[in-house]
């Protein structure tokens, strides 16, 4: 019997008992994937806080003579064009990359939150205005935004981060607005008003927390995306500054040798993907818990 029928059981017996819908959906149970994700997250944490614990070599020590050596026991991920140990650089790059990813996402979220909140809670006029502002941001090709920011303040991780943050903001704004609207009109906000709670308390205790849960899930996706974005800037030669070992930059630099030395791009790329995977799985875990409740 197809799984449609399995899942539809939720709806089938839904009206009768509230918890069936929770049982019904397969997405909504803690999965082994979550455990793996946590493990990887732990690795990232260590790599950020104390990279030296994980490194097998000095990340920036050059050794031109053994450049381009493929993965081996000596160099797990091989060496790059300057003979630096790719594995150690990948570990080294974790901090920088996550910093870019996280802070870019943070910037995007912050702006998005402000715009979204104003739009959702500020009345129809503000909503319209913010809507346009959002469209303006949307209408700007993200890359141009990035280029402008970079030529304005010079290249480097910071500007790259700002650029990426800015260009992701409208997306967040739109989603947050939607969330806030649905919460604003929800029964529990009404109930809180009836109990005589003030608007700020309601916003702080009910609206915001509930809006943030799905947003958190978004953010997890955003981090990986931001790193990828930054790497594209590095490809255009505007990303992190050498010799900083940042995944995006490594990806961009290694690209030249993709046919001769695959390991230069594959491993940093893998880290980006795995990070996105891990964060997303964790994000899903968060929302799954929340999702049961809506």
């Amino acid at each position: 019997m197809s799984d449609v029928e399995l899942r539809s059981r939720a709806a089938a017996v839904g009206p009768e008992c509230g918890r069936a819908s929770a049982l019904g959906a397969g997405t909504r149970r803690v999965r082994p994937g979550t455990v793996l994700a946590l493990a990887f997250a732990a690795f990232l944490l260590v790599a950020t806080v104390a990279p030296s614990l994980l490194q097998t070599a000095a990340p920036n020590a050059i050794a031109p003579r053994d450049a381009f050596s493929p993965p081996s026991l000596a160099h797990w991920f091989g060496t790059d064009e300057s003979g630096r140990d790719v594995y150690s650089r990948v570990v080294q790059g974790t901090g920088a990359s996550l910093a870019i990813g996280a802070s870019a996402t943070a910037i995007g979220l912050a702006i998005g939150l402000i715009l979204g909140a104003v739009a959702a809670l500020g009345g129809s006029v503000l909503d319209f205005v913010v809507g346009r502002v959002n469209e303006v941001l949307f209408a700007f090709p993200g890359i141009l935004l990035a280029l402008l920011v970079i030529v304005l303040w010079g290249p480097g991780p910071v500007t790259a981060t700002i650029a990426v943050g800015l260009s992701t903001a409208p997306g967040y704004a739109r989603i947050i607005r939607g969330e806030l609207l649905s919460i604003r009109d929800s029964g529990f906000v009404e109930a809180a008003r009836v109990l005589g709670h003030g608007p700020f308390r309601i916003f702080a205790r009910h609206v915001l927390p509930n809006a943030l849960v799905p947003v958190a899930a978004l953010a997890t996706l955003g981090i990986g995306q931001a790193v990828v974005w930054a790497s594209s800037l590095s490809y255009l030669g505007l990303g992190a500054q050498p010799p900083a070992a940042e995944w995006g930059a490594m990806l961009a630099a290694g690209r030249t040798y993709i046919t001769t030395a695959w390991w230069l791009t594959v491993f940093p790329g893998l880290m980006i993907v795995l990070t996105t995977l891990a964060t997303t799985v964790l994000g899903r875990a968060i929302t799954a818990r929340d999702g049961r409740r809506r």
Partner: protein
Amino acid sequence: MTGTTQAAPAPTDAPVADVLAIEGLRVTFGDGGAPVEAVRGIDLRVGRGEVVALVGESGSGKSVTARAALGLAGAGARVQAERFELDGSDVRRATPRQWRRLRGAKAGLVLQDALVSLDPLRPIGREIGDALRLHLGLRPAAARARVLGLLELVGMPHPALTIDRRSGELSGGMRQRALIASALALDPPLVIADEPTTALDVGVQVRVLGLLAEAAARGAGVLLISHDLAVVSRIADRVVVLADGVVVEAGPTGEVLASPRHPRTRELIAAVPTDVPRGVPLLGAPATAGPSQPAAAPAVRPPAPTGAPPVVEARGLVKAFTVGGSTTVAVDDVDLRLERGRTLGLVGESGSGKTTVARLLLALTRPDAGTVRLDGDAWSELPERARRPQRRRIGAIWQDPFGSFDPRWGVERLLRDAIAAGGGAPGSAAVADLLDQVHLSPDLAARHPLDLSGGQRQRVAIARALAARPDVLICDEPVSALDVTVQARVLDLLDELQREHGLALLVISHDLGVVRHMSDELAVMRHGRILEQGPAERVFDAPEHEYTAALIRDSPRLAVGPDARRDPADR
């Protein structure tokens, strides 16, 4: 209204061949390690032209049984039966492919809410036509013609227009008709209707039942699933009462109603509020009730000296909504008085403006005209800032308590929050006490509403409302989402609490039976206006307005005599 019925009504007294024959049906959900047995060996028979009502509370297994009859119990379910025949063919070993051929052709399904049971993105014509397409491979044009016929059959107004509408664009009644039409598309020998009338306005209820009765009259076997004995008793030839996955009682409707043998059956009968006079508890002592000590809430206030202003008084309330250019008047010149310790019932069909009135009284929306006064003082005119400290005095419970709980909060936190709002000390003692007042065990405090049953949730909602020590409780459709038995207990609880705390209640419902049972005063509302208002008994016994009369006539009551199921058909 039913228009052209083509097939000559099959004589009901003719020997009936079973379209559904089930013996020893067991359904177990192997969720995780501990398998849950939802249905534990029931026998069920539906003959041609026969309406069989499968009645029971939530979790009694009735819906699972119905699904099983369609092979939709779910992949997680294990279905066993000694005998399982659909229109004569054994389906115990049926493959998914075979099931698909049976569904729709041999058995049609009518679900509760057509708004979600029909794909909101597809015109109903297509939805109905699907069955034809799937089983007869009809070309769109041919299918359309057939669908139009079906819409005629179910008495859909202007079929030619409605056929291209989506369910969201239709009224509840029309939707339900469409849904039934899709179930009848291939004129299946068996029609299974799962709560087809729950939460529908009584008028619509009657018409829907009428359609099912007609289907039976045309020779189909109808399996009608409901928690409300009163509703099904209208048209059911036989009643099968389920409890905890077993049949506790079965027999001709008349007999079962006249002389119920099993306590669960009696409970179901007793739970029907219609015609039970005000103040008489429906189910005697609440089943879940513990020893109810005197409440910690303030003692009953003395009934207000006559002449004292009503707790809540609304004068000339008017509220209109403008949705993109078009304006609709939701509430039109409404006057209401809520006296301390008494209950005002407000009844009307969906869309009559009941809820808007509630929101106006709660000062959640500003009236365009008119005022609401609280204890004679200004209320609706107050600036929100000034009103806020007073708000706790008017509590509210809604049809969907779940939606009124912050999804992130557990029972305890919900109640503490409310107690604090009422100026009380939010200790766990207070929480336990509140739960006790609504006859819930204190250890529910630790749970999340998600893990509570519908009835328990509504009790928690009531507890939260009480926590703020209100003078007035506004109940908007407090029970319409609940099983009758649960509904009965909640109603009894409200009564009890009113007596304890001298609350003034406003009970809003589309179900006149409920309102009448609860109310001292009664107001009938339609199109935003109060049609008539007065002492409950008077309004109910001698309705001044024809509409009121219709409401009274349609409100579900236990039918007496086997011919009961005829009457809806001739309207």
